[in-house]
Every structure is written in C-alpha cells, then in structure tokens.
C-alpha cells in the first residue's frame, strides 16, 4: 500500500458527491470514467432514524496491486518513492486487463482515447506538497489525507471517544 491513506469520517460525510466533481475538474476527465465514487448505502431504520452511509471509493493504491501485475505493457505502474499506482498513458494499449484484475473496479475506461484512466492521488499535487483534490475541497471536511499509521491511530482515538461518556 502507498504510504498515504484517505480517511473518511462517516459522521461528517453528507453524500454530496463534491469529491467526485473535484476529481473530475482537477483531472479534466470526460463524462463516464470516475476515479472515485461515493456509493450510498441504506437508508436503513436504526432506532427510528433512517441511517444512510456514503462510502468513498478511490483507488486503494495496493502494496501488491492486481492491476500492475496484469498489465502486459508496463503502463500500470507503482511509484517506488511512495507507492502511488498510476497509468503511463503513452504505454497503455487499452487491453483492459487491469479492469479485469482489480477487485475494486478502480481502473476506468476512457472511451475518447481507448485507454485506461485511474486515480493517482493527484500525484502532481502531492509532489508539490499539496493534497489530492477530493480531500482538499471536501465539502464537509470528511476526507483526511493521512498516513496509514495515522489512520489506525485516528480510528482508535475516535472509538475511545465514542464509548466514553462523562
């Protein structure tokens, strides 16, 4: 897995789909492919409240990506310095092996070019010390750009707070 992680605070996510549009405008993606998705789940009645969750699905940037292994041309690559998985457009032949291989449905088909596109965590921004578009502009500050280690610490902290009442 890349050294980065996007943490989604479910309590703050309002399912507004802004992250998807932030991504599309930043990466200038045509209609069709989506690098990240908000998947609404529910509503389900829990103690008389119609609870809904909105699950944020970017690329997980796996440590051992299915997509890079499946790619016959070396277009799908993992950056050695931080583990970001991305497509080198000039090498992609549009064989769609990565689409078949990825268990999460992350690689996206670009009808206009006949090549695959995918989330690269906005690596050009990351290289400038900035955060990906989806995180930077998240309407509700639900998405956080942290390391995988920080993510587990954050989760523990939240859990501890949630079970404690004064």
């Amino acid at each position: 897995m890349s050294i980065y992680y996007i943490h989604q605070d479910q309590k703050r996510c309002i399912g507004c789909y802004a992250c998807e549009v932030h991504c599309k405008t930043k990466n200038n993606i045509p209609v069709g492919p989506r690098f990240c998705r908000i998947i609404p789940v529910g509503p389900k009645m829990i103690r008389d409240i119609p609870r809904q969750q909105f699950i944020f699905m970017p690329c997980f940037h796996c440590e051992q990506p299915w997509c890079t292994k499946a790619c016959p041309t070396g277009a799908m690559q993992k950056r050695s310095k931080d583990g970001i998985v991305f497509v080198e457009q000039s090498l992609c032949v549009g064989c769609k092996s990565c689409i078949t291989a990825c268990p999460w449905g992350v690689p996206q088909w670009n009808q206009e070019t006949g090549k695959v596109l995918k989330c690269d965590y906005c690596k050009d921004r990351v290289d400038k010390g900035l955060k990906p578009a989806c995180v930077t502009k998240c309407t509700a500050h639900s998405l956080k750009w942290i390391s995988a280690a920080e993510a587990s610490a954050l989760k523990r902290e939240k859990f501890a707070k949630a079970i404690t009442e004064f």
Partner: protein
Amino acid sequence: MGETSSVYSMCGMCAVRCPIKVEVEDGVVKWIEGNPHVPGIEGSLCAKGSAGIAFEYDTERPQHPMIREGARGSGKWKKATWDEALDYIAEKLKKITEKYGAKAIALADRSGPFTDLTKSFVKALGSPNYLDHDDTCAKNVNIACQTLFGYGRGELGYDFANTKHIVLYGRNVFESLQVKEVNNILDALDAGAKITYIDCRATVTASKADRFLMIRPGTDYALNLALIHVILKERLYDVDFVNKWVTGLTELESFIVPYTPEWAEKETGISAQEIINLARDLSDAKPKVIFHGGWMLARYLDSFYSSRSIYILNTLMGSIETKGGLIIAKGPKDAGAKPLKSIGDKIPEVKDKIVDADMPNKSLGTGHIVNLYKAIKTGQPYPVKAFFAYRYDPMASLPDPEAQKKVLDNLDLLVSIDVNYSETGWYSDVILPEATYLERSNIIATQKGPKPGFIMRRQAIPPRYDSKPAWEIFTLIVERMGVGQYFPYKSIEDIWNYQLESTGVKIEDFNAKGSVGLSKDPILMGRNDLKFKTPSGKIEFVSQTLTKNKFDSFKAYVTPKKPEKGAFRLTFGRSGVHAHAQSQNNIYLNELISENVLWMNEKEAKDLGIKDGDKVEVSADGYSGKIKAKVTPLIHPEAVFMLHGFGNEIPPKTRSYKKGLRDTKFETGLLETIDPVGGGVAYLECMVGVKKA
C-alpha cells in the same frame, strides 16, 4: 507552464455565493477551491462550486446578445451586437415611458448582496418597481420574523457552532446546502449537539438526526402549537427572558389552550408523548437551542403562521442574541465603521409608489413578485409594460408556466439578463448574456453578521464570449435613456472607489483574503440591553403591525386538505448536486443526476400496482408527464416528491433537454395562491394523480 495567477472571489453557481479562490494558468481557470482563510470553509467547495469550471467552458450558454425574431418562445433569434440589442431595449423603454410613465418598467432579481446596483438602475430610470424572487422563497419567514422582532430573517443568524439542539422543519441542511453552515452544524454534532428533523420525507439530513419525525404534510403549524402548549403549561420557557422582552404572552397563553399534544397527534401523526419529550429536551438545552425559522418556506397557506410559531418557540427558549442561539446581524455601524456608499444616493427619489403599495386585500409588505404579475395581467393599479428578469427565472420557479406566458404576453418588452439560457430568457424579447462569475467583478457587498465586513467578487479571466458584467450592462442602458449622470462609472474600480469613499478601506485591502473584516470579535448586545425594531421595542407575540393591518397575531389552525385516493400532495426540494433550474445541463452535475424520479410511499404504490423503478404518469389539471418511481417507506403516504429544476424545454441545452419533469408545471392555477399574510406562494397546495404508465 506559463503565467499563473490567483484571485479571491465569490462563487456564482448558486445563490449562497461562498467565498472562493480561483487559480488561472495561461488565461484558463484550472482550479477553484473554497477560500482557505474563511472559518467553516477552509478550502471546502460543494459539487456545484467545483463544476463551475465545466460551466465556464461550456458552449451551451448564451454567447452574444440575441433579439427575438419569431413569436415569443418560438426559439427564433437574431444574433445581435451589444449596440443593436441595447438600442432596441432603449427605444422600447422610451416608448413605454412616454405612454405609461417610467413606473411601467420593472426589474426583478433574486435579491442578495449586490442589489444596490439593480435597485439604483431602476431608480435611475425613474421607476419604483424593483422586486425580488422572495415570494417563492423566504418571504413568509422574513415577514414573520419582522412582526416579532422588527428584524428580517436575514438579520437573525444561527450560531450553529455553539448550539446544543437544532430543530429543522424540512430545512434539509445537508442537501440544500450552504458549505459554511454544513461545517458549523457538523462541528456542533461532533461536540455533542442534537438534531431533530421534521419532514414528510427522509432526507440525508434525517439520516444524521437524533430524532426524525415523519410529519403529515402541511401540519408543521399544529406541531408547533402543541410544543408551545407544553412549554407554557409546564413552564419550560426562559421565564426571565420572556418576562423582560415579550409582549403578548397572556394572549398566547389563552390562545394555546385547545392545542394539546393529543390534539396535535391526530393532525401530525407524531405521538403526543414524542411532542412532550421534545419540548422537555429542548428546554433542558435552552438557551442554546435553534429552531430554524425556514429558508424556503413558500409552501402552504399557513406557512407565515407556521414560521411565526417557530420564532415564538425560539423566543420561549430565550435563544435570541445568545451564544448557540439566534444572533442579530450587525452591520458596519455596529462595529464603529462607516457603511458603503449607495449608488442610489446620487439619484433623485422616485415619487410613484411601487406597484403593490395599495393593492386591495394584499399580504404584508410590498415588492411581491406575485403582485407584479397581477399588475402586468390587469393593468391595475397601473400598467407595467417592461420587465427585466436579471439572473432570475420566474418561468422556472413560479407556478404554472403556461399561465405565466399569458400574463407576460401583456408586456411590450421582456428582457432576460443571465449567464444561462433560462426558461424566461427563452420566452423573452432580448437575451443579454452576462459575463459569468469567473469573468466579471461585482460591486462590493456588505456582509452583516456577528462579525460584519465587506466582500468582493473579482474577475478571474476575461469573458470567453461576447458578454458583459452587470454593472456595465446597466450603465449602458442608463446612458441610452439620457440619465447617464446617475451612473458615471467607466470601470468597476470607479464604482468600488465610490462605494468605499467614506469607509477608510481601500481596494487593495481585499487582495490578501478577498474580504475586509470590520470587527475582530463577534459583537453581541448585552442580555439586558437588547434592541428590537418593533413599534414597542419588544418581541411582539401580539404584533402591532399585524393588528394595524387587520391580521391575527395568532391564527386558528386549519387542517390541510387530505388528497383523494390515488392523488398525492406534490412536494419538491433539492439535492446537493443541483441549484434550482440552472445547473442540470452542466456536464459533470448532469452526469451525477440527469433526471428526477418520483418518490412515493411503498404502501400507496402497492395499491396502485407500482414497483420501484416503474415508469409512472403524473398528472394535474390537463398536464401530465412520465417519470420513474422511487418506491420507499420513507415518504409520507399523502405526499410524492420530486427534485426541482428538471424538465428543461430549451433545445440548446442538449444534455438536460426534456429530461425529467418540472414540478411547477403541475402547479396549475396556483400562480395567485399565496399565504394571505406573508405573501409566499403556496406551492404545496398542489395535488397530482399518479398511475402506472
């Protein structure tokens, strides 16, 4: 990479106008984010705001002035230069003024912080007829608020960040969203605040609530009366505050006697015990309690009294001008600063009265758009023959577009000034394309609130098409009408310098953050030193204004109509993705939601043989249309719901053309159906038939 620049400005994708930062590379807008300096924003931007780039680079918007060639609405246009279009308008205006007087010219917009320009334009032409859209939005709320406090609803801000309990009546804060408000409310929830959400439909806001009360549509007022009943009976109110600041408590006490929780249960479907519990919980949290008075509350015939009862509840909780409650907005003067100068100061006062000043049997206040339509239709009290719709689309927002066409046909001149092709624009005589919010600067706006200030919308790139900013359009018309001395401005900087003249603030002061604050800390009046702008200086439960105008302060409850079998009350609302009827054609927003669906209750659907995803025919009084059904237990059986703003009928907007249905088309015969006191349109007095298509 070539030349880059960045500018602080204000979004224009909806009427919230969030502060933004725009980054430009080689003359192309590459990045828009929420203004990082503004608390509650800090980079955040909603989907619509981000899609501003797609809007800017869209070709499906007006690209040059257009003069109508065929019949109104026929879609036959002549491409015009600005000189041709403005000369055409001026010639018509001169003829109209000659025959009917300048008062026969009207302009309506969607209100907001830049109206000094539009009001001054109308004044310069010599007409009293500046109106806004508020009959279709917050008019009931605004007037209800004024009758209690003497302040309009915009002058009572909500201190969500510090509150303990928020009560929302169909105010779907997480979908019909304002970014700053969303974050303030989420921060409050993180700190342990509660939300009680009351609606006839389960929205995203309901999903975040601590209490969701599914209410029978049209009975909010009954719920409020019962809450007041419990609060007074159990003395759950802030006694000190009410004794000190309220007039008319005794009258309220005797009025409220019959409105017991048990009575309200039968009206609302919410159990009496639930109502009692809610009243007690709220009292425990007082005064850090916010009952949201309503944003868009043009809904029912009693929405004025419903909103008024909400503000009475706030008062009973003592939550006025206190942390975590409702805080009276402060202006520059309250911060010891000088206000902006008004463009209109240099223009002589208009002697004629606004068109609805003396209309018989009228609702409170003046400037009601519904009354303008009446005057256009009847010629009474005097004819109105020219109508400018400035970034305003009444044909998409007021009920019954077909009835509206008949009214508008009485006009000699209908002009639409907009960045979009609007339904009204398509029916008008001239379309003047305004430069987009990324292509124009606006006049400086005052931000009233606990921390008042000034804010600026600043041009990021030159107009991509043959369009102009509003200030220039209005200046050019005023010049052609021979009164150019009232708009002696050659650039937006001329106007800014004039506005700022006595403030001590300079244009360059806006460079650092996009706004200029006038107070470091929030300004709060002392608890014993409150000022209300009512005739008595108190919070008037019994309102002198209402009494003077022969309206009740407390209105007996009338139970709403129950739809017949197979018929439903048509309700409508917003998602977080679209703004009114103006964004459905945006490539990215259209990709997210391209058509609306009809929410209907699962039991009712079953009775009608309708399954989730089936196409259904929705009909009302000779109009019908087809749409997919979303069958759910999470809407009240008496109601159906659709998102507002779909069903565009303007061919150049190809992505949204004829996609989905438009709620206002079903509201046949409702153009003059208004709340009799507040004047807000009673949109939800609309019953539709639904059957499987």
